[in-house]
């Protein structure tokens, strides 16, 4: 019995020491307290050097957490228990979060540098007057392929992905809207279709695409394309830019039928604890030099017009990444589908995944 008591006391003492030590470390790192800034962002979506620079300039400590889909981010903000000060969702999710009162309206008197942003990216339908959101990046969904691995094919449209020569060679982004969108656009329908017949047609079209799909994955696409594990990928423009940087045989094209155009904007969610830090971060990211450095690192297109002069000429002249107005007119932005159709799209997507 004595031995048991001794061992129990030892365990308790040990636990206490570990707890105390972890508290000390946390305090030393400043992951709790009033000068901490909780940034909830996509993975690999900011130049880490900029976070250091932000910390040095403002004195805030950045706690950086990542998500891999708008929906995962939404769930965490909606369920509460989190203390994110700033997050960067896409347009359809911003629309939904505004509707559900999950965002804090912005005080424009505290924001400096909005004049740097190109007018095309301001006052868009998902957030009129930018009451809730400030543009961060924008981009497209398109086809990245390795010219060396498929030398005899010209991939310029969604249609060309259905070529039997591409059997088991396409890496597809693991997203319901992206994949169903390909089915819809191949048939000339809108990405936001809520028409049962159009959706059914899209599903039937996708059945023919299934044999060409090697895998449906997300962030790993970049790695596999660079290592030439696969020849073709349907992915976002910035991901493609990273691949092209690492492997010179890869090219990125916007499909002829049109594609998805998206905007990721900075918003302050209801979970905010440190509003001052959130505004400081927004203003920091609006700075043209910072925006240019970030765009150069991440690879997506910046909405910051003043930043363009700091970017290499070949970048801003590349039509695949800064498409002409004519091309942009062909692109379509996602709208929030509402819970019912989100469910239907995802059910279709599950069905697509199960085609052998």
């Amino acid at each position: 019995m004595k031995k048991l008591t001794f061992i129990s006391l030892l365990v308790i003492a040990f636990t206490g020491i570990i707890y105390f030590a972890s508290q000390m470390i946390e305090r030393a790192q400043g992951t709790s307290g009033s000068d901490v800034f909780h940034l909830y962002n996509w993975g690999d979506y900011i130049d880490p050097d900029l976070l250091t620079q932000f910390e040095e300039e403002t004195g805030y400590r950045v706690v950086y957490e990542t998500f891999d889909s708008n929906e995962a981010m939404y769930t965490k903000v909606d369920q509460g228990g989190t203390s994110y000060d700033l997050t960067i969702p896409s347009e359809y999710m911003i629309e939904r979060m505004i509707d559900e009162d999950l965002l804090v309206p912005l005080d424009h008197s505290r924001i400096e540098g909005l004049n740097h942003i190109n007018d095309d990216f301001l006052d868009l339908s998902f957030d009129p007057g930018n009451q809730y959101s400030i543009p961060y990046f924008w981009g497209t969904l398109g086809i990245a392929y390795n010219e060396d691995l498929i030398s005899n094919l010209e991939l310029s449209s969604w249609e060309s992905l259905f070529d039997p020569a591409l059997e088991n060679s396409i890496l597809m982004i693991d997203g319901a809207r992206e994949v169903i969108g390909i089915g819809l656009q191949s048939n000339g329908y809108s990405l936001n279709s809520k028409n049962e017949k159009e959706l059914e047609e899209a599903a039937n079209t996708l059945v023919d695409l299934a044999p060409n799909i090697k895998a449906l994955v997300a962030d790993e696409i970049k790695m596999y394309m660079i290592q030439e594990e696969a020849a073709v990928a349907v992915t976002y423009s910035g991901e493609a830019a990273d691949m092209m940087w690492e492997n010179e045989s890869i090219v990125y094209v916007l499909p002829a039928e049109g594609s998805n155009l998206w905007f990721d904007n900075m918003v302050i969610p209801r979970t905010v604890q440190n509003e001052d830090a959130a505004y400081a971060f927004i203003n920091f990211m609006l700075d043209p030099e910072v925006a240019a450095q970030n765009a150069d690192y991440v690879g997506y297109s910046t909405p910051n017009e003043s930043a363009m002069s700091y970017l290499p000429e070949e970048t801003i002249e590349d039509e695949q990444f800064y498409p002409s107005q004519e091309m942009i007119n062909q692109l379509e932005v996602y709208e929030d589908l509402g819970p019912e159709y989100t469910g239907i799209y995802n059910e279709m997507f599950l069905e697509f995944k199960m085609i052998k």
Partner: protein
Amino acid sequence: MLKQRKALSVPYYLWIALFVIAPVFLLLYQSFQNIDGSFSLANIQTYFTSTVYLTMTLQSFLYAFVITVVALLISYPAAYFLTRAKNKQLWLLVLILPTWINILLKTYAFIGILSQTGAVNQFFEFIGLGTQPLLFTRLGFIIVATYIEIPFMLLPIFNAIDEIDDSMVFASRDLGANEWDTFRSVIFPMSMSGVRSGVQAVFIPSLSLFMLTRLIAGNRVVTLGTAIEQHFLVTQNWGMGSTMGIVLIIIMFVVMFLTGKRRKGGQRG
């Protein structure tokens, strides 16, 4: 003394009520809610009328079955020879060691091993077979899943065989049974308890391996786990997700029942 013992058991009952019974009831409650949060039986109806969900359940079942059988076929002989080995505790440690490593790390290691330029394909190339697709195939998925589950199968079987009294084996030999007869009518029946717990420990988790289905099978294998994750994270249809959770629990009970000990009525000692 009795009172004291009763008082001591309170935390355990509280624990079970809060962390075992309450969550199951919450899940059950959720499963009767439709997407708007009102009471309905729609989820259950959707589940049992949708070919998507039914084939998915069947497929999950099939994969879990294959994984369990392969794991058993590898683990049983391994456990048997292990009990007869010198330094068996050391060998056991070596076989259990991989479970100490985070499952995500092991999965990522397999991505490297199975890829087109990975170790396995380099070997295939060397012996003249040429590069075979392994990553993002069903075979690759079963290999990795089996590898991960083997320790959970091996350990209970090893313990069961190890516990068999040597005198039983000697008695069997004395009575004229050869090695194979001894194994068939003494060791194997007496190790069944280990096989049962092994099967239970492997089959149930294999039904909902959702991380492997994405990382190794590239979502070309879809299990119930994939669908549950999607309903909780993407469509926010927690009711449907809960319904599938309930289905998994029911399957679990069925497996427990099928592999559980049955009384042999009417048989004399």
